[in-house]
C-alpha cells in the first residue's frame, strides 16, 4: 500500500435510524478498510439488519453519513447510485433469487441489465462464477429445486458476477447445518483471496464469525459496543459481550408497576 492511511471502503458516521417513531440505531460509527472481512455481530433485534439496509441504500437514515467507496450515498444522484451499485454485491439472508428465473438467468441478470456483452460471453462468465461456488452444472434448475445451501451459493454467485469491490453478506449460515455453513465460510474466504473483495458479513453465528472475521463489530440495542480483532472481542471484559459469547440469557429487569399497567392495558 503506498498511502499511509488508505481511505476506508465503507464509512458510517453517527447513523441514526427510526422505524416509525421508534429509534433503533442511536448513532452508529463504522469504518471498514480495503480488503478486510468485517463481521457485524449482535443478538437478535440489535439492529444488524437495519445497519445493513442503510448501507445498501434500501432505507434512508434519519441522520448521519454513509460513504461507500468514497461516495456519500445519502446525498447522491440516482444515476450515480446506479453506477455505484455495479461495484457492490449483496447476498441476502434468504438468497432472494428470482423465483421465476433459472439459476443461470438469475446470475446473468446483472450482466444482461448493465453490460452490452454478447450472450456467449455472459454464459461463460456465469459458468465461471458457478464453478467458483461449486454449483457447476446447475444453471438450468429453478431456485425452488435447490437446497438451502445451494440457494445461498447461487445467491453468492449472483452477488459476485460483476466482480464487485464490496460484498455484503446477510446471515450466511442462517438455516444451514454446521457442515454446509462451514463450507460457506471457506467460500467467503476463497472469494476474498481470489478477488480481493472487501466483505461485510452480518451474522449472529459465533463459530462462523471467528472463522472468517478480520475485525468484528459488536452491536447491541442500536449501539456499537466495540470494534476489534477476534482476540480483542474474545477477551473483552464488557459484560454484554461476554453474555453474547457465552450465550447467557440476559437479565431482564421488570418494573412491577409498569408490568401491571401493561397487563391491564393502561398506558402511562
Amino acid at each position, binding site marked *: 500500500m503506498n498511502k499511509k492511511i488508505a481511505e476506508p471502503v465503507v464509512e458510517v458516521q453517527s447513523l441514526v435510524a427510526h422505524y416509525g417513531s421508534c429509534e433503533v440505531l442511536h448513532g452508529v460509527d463504522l469504518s471498514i478498510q480495503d480488503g478486510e472481512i468485517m463481521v457485524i455481530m449482535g443478538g437478535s433485534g440489535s439492529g444488524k439488519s437495519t445497519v445493513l439496509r442503510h448501507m*445498501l441504500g*434500501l432505507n434512508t437514515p434519519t441522520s448521519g453519513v454513509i460513504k461507500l467507496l468514497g461516495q456519500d450515498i445519502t446525498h447522491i444522484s440516482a444515476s450515480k447510485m446506479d453506477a455505484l*451499485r*455495479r461495484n457492490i454485491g449483496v447476498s441476502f439472508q434468504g438468497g*432472494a433469487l428470482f423465483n421465476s428465473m433459472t439459476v443461470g438467468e438469475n446470475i446473468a441478470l446483472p450482466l444482461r*441489465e448493465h453490460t452490452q456483452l454478447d450472450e456467449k460471453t455472459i454464459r461463460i462468465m456465469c459458468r465461471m462464477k458457478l464453478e467458483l461456488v461449486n454449483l457447476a452444472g446447475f444453471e438450468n434448475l429453478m431456485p425452488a429445486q435447490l437446497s438451502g445451501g445451494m440457494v445461498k451459493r447461487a445467491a453468492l454467485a449472483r452477488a459476485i458476477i460483476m466482480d464487485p469491490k464490496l460484498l455484503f453478506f446477510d446471515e450466511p449460515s442462517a438455516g444451514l447445518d454446521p457442515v454446509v455453513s462451514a463450507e460457506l465460510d471457506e467460500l467467503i474466504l476463497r472469494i476474498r483471496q481470489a478477488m480481493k473483495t472487501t466483505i461485510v458479513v452480518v451474522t449472529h453465528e459465533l463459530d462462523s464469525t471467528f472463522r472468517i472475521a478480520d475485525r468484528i463489530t459488536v452491536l447491541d440495542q442500536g449501539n456499537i459496543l466495540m470494534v476489534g480483532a477476534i482476540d480483542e472481542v474474545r477477551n473483552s471484559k464488557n459484560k454484554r459481550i461476554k453474555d453474547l459469547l457465552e450465550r447467557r440469557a440476559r437479565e431482564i429487569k421488570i418494573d412491577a408497576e409498569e408490568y401491571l399497567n401493561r397487563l391491564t392495558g393502561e398506558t402511562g
Partner: protein
Amino acid sequence: MLRYIEKIGRATVGSIEELGYASSLLAESFYWIVFGARRGQAVSVSATFYQMLQVGIAAIPICAALSFAVGIMLAIQGINTLKAFGAESQVVVGIALSVTREFAPLIIGILIAGRSGSAIAARVGTMQVSQEIDALRVIGISPVRYLVVPALLAMIVMVPTLTFFADIVGMFGGAFFSVLELDISMQAYIDRTIKALVVDDVMQGLWKSVVFAVIIAIVGFVNGFSVSGGAEGVGKATTRSVVQAISLIIVADMVFTFYLNH
C-alpha cells in the same frame, strides 16, 4: 368516542398516503417510459409482450363467455321490458348502446381486476417478502421500470382490446337471443346495430377501459409493494387489491358516465 375519531383519522391519513404513493408510482412509470433508454434502463419489450399474453390472450375464452352471457341477459331483460310498450324490436338499439358504453368495459374491468390485478399483487407481494424487490434495487434495477411499466403498458393495451372484443361478442349474444325470440333475421339485426351505433359510443367505452386498466395495475402494485408480514400479508394484499380495484372501477365509471353524458 375519542378513540373512534382517532381511528377514522388514522384511516384517512393512511388512504391519503396510499393515494400519494399510487400517484408517485404512476409518475415514475411515465418517467421510465420516456427517459428509461436515456438512463441506460430501457423498458423491456419482451417483458411487456409476455405480460400482454398473460393479461390479454389468456383471458380471451373467459371474456368471450362472460360477454356472450351478458348480451343474452340484456336481450332477455330488454325484450321483456319493451314488450310492455310493444316496442320489443327496439331492443337492438338498447343492447348496442348498453354493451358498448357500459357493460363491456365494466365486465372486462371487473374480470381483469379479479384475474390479473390480484396476480400482480400476489406476485409482487411474494417478491417483497422474499426480498426479491430489495435484490432488484441493490443490483441497480428499478423495480418500477422492471416490474410496473411492462404490466402497466400491457394493461393499457390489452384491457381496451378485450373490451372491444367484448363489445362484439356481447352484441352477438344479444343477437343470438333476439333472433330466436323475435321475428328478425341475423342480417337485419346486424344492419340495425350498425345503424344505431356511432363511433363515439364505442370510443366512450374504450376510454373508460383505459382508465380501468391504469386503476387495476396501479392498485395491484401499490398493494403488492406494501406487503409486510409473510404469506398472510400476501393473501391480505391480494384480496385488498381486488376489492379496491373493483370499487374504484365502479366509482370511476359513474363519474365518467356523468361527465360524458352531460
